[in-house]
């Protein structure tokens, strides 16, 4: 039975959202009854923690830094939480490299610099696409098409680059790990790039490529993996569902009249059918996330908008 959503009170941000793919990340901390939201604005990440009773909000801003040197601004491409069994880390990807923070953004625990050429080349250099995989991996994509696999210990800052996966030839746009919680799934990770190519991986000491699903000459901006099904949003406004390991196309949705910027699924629902649509007037949406695993609430961000708009089921 289809349930209606209604608009809730928005959360104000310190600065507006930039027009980036997947520009909203949500972390639910049940023991403390709060939810964290992050939204990228140019070279700053706005973090808001919202208490579930709606009474307390606190803000923090993280600036993109290169190691210990505060140099001229480096634009951030994405910020996302990585939930691992033993710890949650906040990962930022920018033109200069990758930074990992403790989940509240208080301490930077790791910094990885990208190789930037001496003189500007025609190809931009940046990192984009973040996913936590299984117990101990954080995978980050790069504009060259490489996927960097980081080995993360259960605590401390001894994070190491364990592998570089070279299958994509175009810039990585998004990455997603299996989110159903089902440990029997073979595929652990899917990566997407600007040509629309999807790569499906199995994690391990050496990551194994399970399948390559070609694109159709349009960027895949946002991707999810659920019970082995790859759900991908494309620049043509379409969403496609593939069986990850075989590459079989299961369904195709003509979803939007513009480029899709962000897509999310609520892992505990198991629904693939249209339930609801809403139009945020005069706003170009750049981030969309469910706030909980049941899909009870979701939030969106928009370009030039200094608030997070929320919807909950009636």
């Amino acid at each position, binding site marked *: 039975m289809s349930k209606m959503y209604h608009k809730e009170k928005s959360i104000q941000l310190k600065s507006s959202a930039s027009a980036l793919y997947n520009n909203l990340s949500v972390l639910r901390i049940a023991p403390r009854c709060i939810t964290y939201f992050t939204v990228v604005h140019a070279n700053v990440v706005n973090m808001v923690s919202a208490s579930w009773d709606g009474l307390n909000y606190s803000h923090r801003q993280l600036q993109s830094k290169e190691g210990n040197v505060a140099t001229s601004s480096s634009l951030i491409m994405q910020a996302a939480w990585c939930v691992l069994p033993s710890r949650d880390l906040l990962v930022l990807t920018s033109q200069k490299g990758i930074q990992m923070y403790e989940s509240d953004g208080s301490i930077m625990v790791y910094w990885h610099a990208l190789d930037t050429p001496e003189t500007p080349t025609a190809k931009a250099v940046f990192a984009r696409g973040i996913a936590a995989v299984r117990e101990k991996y954080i995978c980050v994509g790069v504009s060259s098409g490489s996927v960097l696999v980081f080995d993360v210990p259960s605590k401390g800052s001894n994070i190491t680059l364990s592998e570089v996966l070279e299958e994509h030839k175009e810039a990585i746009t998004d990455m997603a790990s299996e989110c159903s919680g089902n440990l029997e799934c073979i595929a652990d990770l899917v990566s997407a790039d600007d040509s629309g190519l999807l790569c499906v991986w199995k994690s391990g000491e050496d990551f194994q490529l399970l399948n390559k699903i070609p694109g159709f000459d349009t960027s895949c901006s946002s991707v999810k993996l659920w019970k082995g099904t790859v759900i991908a949003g494309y620049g043509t406004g379409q969403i496609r569902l593939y069986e990850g390991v075989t590459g079989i196309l299961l369904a195709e949705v003509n979803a939007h009249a513009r480029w899709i910027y962000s897509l999310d699924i609520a892992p505990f629902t198991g629904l693939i059918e249209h339930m609801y649509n809403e139009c945020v007037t*005069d706003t170009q949406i750049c981030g969309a996330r469910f706030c909980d695993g049941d899909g009870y609430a979701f939030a969106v961000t928009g370009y030039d908008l200094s608030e997070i708009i929320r919807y909950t089921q009636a």
Partner: protein
Amino acid sequence: MSQRTLPLLIINLGGEMIYILDQRLRAQDDNDDKTQRGRWTDDDRKRVMNDIVATMFNKAFLEELLRPQDLYSHRALRTVLTRLAHASIMRLNQASMDKLYDLMTMAFKYQIVLCPRPKDLLLITFNHTDTIKELVKDNPSLVNQINEAQRQLIEVYTPLSDGDFELIRHTLLVLFQDMQIRVSIFLKEKIQNPNGHFVLQTSGPVPYGFEVPGLIRYFNAKGQEVRRTRFPSGGNYTSALRQGSFDLSGDRVTILGTNMYNTPSSQEMDPSTTSNSTRKQKQADTTPNPLATEELNLLAKLMGGMEVQKILNVDTGFKVNLLALDQEEEGIGISEGTAHESSRVINIQATQDQIASTELARIAGEFDEGGSLTEGPGNKGDDLLAMMDEL
């Protein structure tokens, strides 16, 4: 971010600037305000247009733009565009240039935000070059120059992927982030809301290559469609129109990037058709913004009348009211942050050309000699500026 953004930025912004200046100089010609000295004739206007276009499409200038590089800061950008505006006998004082910059950036921002597919940024650019070509069509060598520039753009940009264009679009949107200046013509045409955000339609044709939303198709393992369902898309969309042409000339299909100041509504704002009743009606429609009026008052107090000089020789300057918010002259109504049409004349005494050139010289002086790359927002583009001086 994207190293390929600058040419599109300069050509589109320059194009908007040319549209505005052309319209203003034409309006100037019709203006029968007897208090002005130095009328702008049609020949004067053509001369200004030709000079500016020649500078903008100069071969060496374009080569410098097309070199892969980071985007300029707003400050450097404004300096380059000011130099461009001053490529001829026309001079704008600081305040006029500020308003011009605001208007052209908001116009281009509108085009970027509304751009249906990232690749359409190129079509928008071509709309600008097409229209500029039309403006200077009496000058064959200039038309050739523009064609040559367009060929270079085609060569550089057609191989780029959608993802590359999306990155260019993103780079531009970062530059224009949070710019919410309300522009009278946009508010009037209902393409901008009073809060400064642009109106986004949820109806009309979908972009080329898109399907109309609202359909789900299910497939079996053999790739055959087994079921279809429909859902309400929340909008009122129709099939895509044909693709715009990416050639040297052709139907671009999109109207973004065309000269909006030539639309019938701007004709209605022609001073010769203004009547008392129209003015009164406009006054009734608008909601005054007290804060903006305060700003305008302060500006007026500080600066006097906003005017433009026409330079025939350095000694005598001909003063022209280019960007006045005058009750007799509706003009473009370039108003910063207000839709209040009944605002009084901003009588800003013209800054003498000497002061204007000193201003630019001062800004230029802040750049490093020799174009060495040191940190600081003002240093980008000094190669470009040096080159413009030589033109």
